[in-house]
């Protein structure tokens, strides 16, 4: 089963080591003005390493290859899921195409005991957490509403109602602090979600209680058909300062910058210094979901522009230029990708439909008389057909 995310897991310790070697960034304090450029970037679209005064990262070749592998496999998984939707195996799929660096960079900055609250598009983060990617398909196939155990990988269920999970993450982080801290919580949400009252309330609670939560906003430029300007007139990372904690914009297509900035933010959270907002400036290269038709609302040259900034391409350029990976590595990865795709295809085809009676399960933890009544009435009703069938046979 080497093609699942499980192999991604051991990275935690190496991430830790790296964190010690590199200098954790000093996020700007609210109100202060950094002389640094507005967006943190450590790897240009051309695949060149650049320096940033506040954020640094010094990954080993192995780590770099690992990040590359994570992104490639995530993209492949995502493409396979899209294909499965086209083939009718899934009802819907929200592709992460283009957001691999934002998700892998942030996902790899986390420790196992940190806790993640995703939206519905964090397949790359799920991968980093070691969630079997086929688990993500269930809700889009319509066999469940999520259903993995959030506590197995400290990866909460996908949340569809925009912004709600920002509060759950904050509450969880309040609990972490009560338990003595030392862990970070990270809440993912989109540019569109930033407009929801719940997200602002989460900022308020997190700031007031100095909760160890990192708000990770993937600004992929679009909320379905609405460009980010329908949500804000100023860069989203600036929202944080007015709530009393630092915000920063990072090149969301630069996996190294995202890694560095997220590491700094989670370190800060773990150290009890309170929340932080990261705006990962990225791009949704595909449709909102398989139901969407972006040609109705966005110009095609925009896509081309962002294709030039592709997160995977730029790391590949860097790896090749610096000779950090050879042809064998890329070939093996291609094969691994194929294996992963196969694994996913097979898993979906053998995924069982839920039992008829499953809808009555887990409505309550401690039971409820009405559910019991309706369950048995329905079972009786179903039985009546069985009887009828039998009768007919007779």
């Amino acid at each position, binding site marked *: 089963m080497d093609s699942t995310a499980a192999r991604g897991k051991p990275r935690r310790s190496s991430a830790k080591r790296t964190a010690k070697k590199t200098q954790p960034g000093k996020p700007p304090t609210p109100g202060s003005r950094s002389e640094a450029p507005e967006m943190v970037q450590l790897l240009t679209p051309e695949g060149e390493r650049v320096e940033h005064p506040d954020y640094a990262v010094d990954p080993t070749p192995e780590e770099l290859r690992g990040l590359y592998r994570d992104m490639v496999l995530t993209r492949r998984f995502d493409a396979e899921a899209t294909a499965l939707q086209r083939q009718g195996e899934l009802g819907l799929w929200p592709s992460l195409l283009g957001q691999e660096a934002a998700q892998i960079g942030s996902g790899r900055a986390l420790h196992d005991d940190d806790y993640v609250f995703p939206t519905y598009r964090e397949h790359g983060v799920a991968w980093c957490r070691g969630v079997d990617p086929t688990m993500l398909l269930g809700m889009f196939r319509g066999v469940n509403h999520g259903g993995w155990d959030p506590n197995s990988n400290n990866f909460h269920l996908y949340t569809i109602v925009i912004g709600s999970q920002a509060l759950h993450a904050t509450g969880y982080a309040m609990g972490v602090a009560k338990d003595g801290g030392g862990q970070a919580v990270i809440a993912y949400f989109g540019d569109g979600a930033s407009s929801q009252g719940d997200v602002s309330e989460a900022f308020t609670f997190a700031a007031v209680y100095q909760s160890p939560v990192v708000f990770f906003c993937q600004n992929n430029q679009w*909320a379905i058909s609405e460009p980010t300007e329908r949500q804000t007139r100023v860069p989203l990372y600036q929202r944080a300062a007015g709530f009393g904690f630092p915000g920063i914009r990072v090149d969301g297509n630069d996996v190294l910058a995202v890694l560095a900035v997220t590491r700094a933010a989670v370190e800060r959270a773990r150290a009890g210094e309170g929340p932080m907002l990261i705006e990962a400036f990225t791009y949704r290269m595909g449709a909102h979901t398989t139901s969407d038709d972006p040609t109705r*609302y966005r110009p095609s040259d925009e896509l081309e522009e962002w294709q030039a900034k592709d997160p995977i391409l730029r790391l590949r350029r860097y790896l090749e230029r610096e000779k950090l990976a050879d042809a064998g590595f890329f070939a093996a990865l291609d094969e691994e990708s194929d294996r992963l795709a196969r694994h996913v295809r097979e898993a979906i085809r053998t995924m069982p439909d839920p039992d008829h009676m499953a809808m009555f399960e887990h409505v309550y933890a401690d039971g409820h008389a009405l559910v019991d009544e309706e369950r048995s009435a329905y079972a009786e009703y179903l039985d009546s057909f069985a009887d009828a069938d039998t009768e007919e046979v007779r």
Partner: protein
Amino acid sequence: MATDTQGRVGGQQAGGPVKTAFAKALNTSLRTALENDPKVLVMGEDVGKLGGVFRITDGLQKDFGEERVIDTPLAESGIIGTAIGLALRGYRPVAEIQFDGFVFPAYDQIVTQLAKMHARALGKVKLPVVIRIPYGGGIGAVEHHSESPEAQFAPVAGLKIVSPSTPSDAYWMLQQAIECDDPVIFLEPKARYWDKGELDTSAIPAPLHRARVVRQGTDLTLAAYGPTVKTALSAAQAAEEEGRSLEVVDLRSISPLDFDTLQRSVEKTGRLVIVHEAPVFFGTGAEVAARITERCFYHLEAPVLRVGGFHAPYPPARLEEEYLPGLDRVLDSVDRALAY
């Protein structure tokens, strides 16, 4: 705009019925309203260039501009809260909520402000806001995209709640909702968006809150609204084949409920089964059962039976056929009612 209670709108080409899809009828209705009254606004998430995720607002922004067909920030409380302000300023906003499950962030603004402000002001201000919600299941969607929230709004005075079941009603009831000076929650059975039916935009529509007997019968009354009207009609058809004559009433309006029409039917048939997708517990069927039993106590030969969703979250798509009140479950209740 609100004076003509018949809901006729000017500027219509006279003409006979035309086969029209439900979604298209809504689109035409919005277009007509935007044309007839400069105060009408359309607002919501993705209603502009995209034309809404169901294309109900397709082409409207192109023709009426961004000032009248407004893409809003992604915040439902904000959509309804600003719609209230716009109404206070004299506009007639038609707000789209993208899916049923996303109306709840706006719940406070709807039940505490929108519903009560007219009364709070002793009638000095009016709140002609329409909230369009694609609702109900049966389209194989993910969570939050198949709910039926009517019972969560119906207890709240100050709101009107309607749900059309045909393209013609979709067109006319939306016209009437927009003309109404009260807030109207306009529930669109999304599973019916692609159904076609006759639409005559020059007809004289029935009053907005009047139920309609859509099939005559003598043995039992089946009441339904929105998406379940079709189910009820199929059930009546199937029952006919077994020699039973069911009357089908399309309630059309949930607040107010047209108990008079229902009462007349039940006094004739003596039996009532009500079908809706929303959970049975505390659902529309409960109110209908309670009041019809009170009104028709001596006519009822069986208790009013209810067919609807279970007391469980709307299930994943592969279970929705089990959860939804389909033909078999309706017929089972009909059998039970007739067995009394």
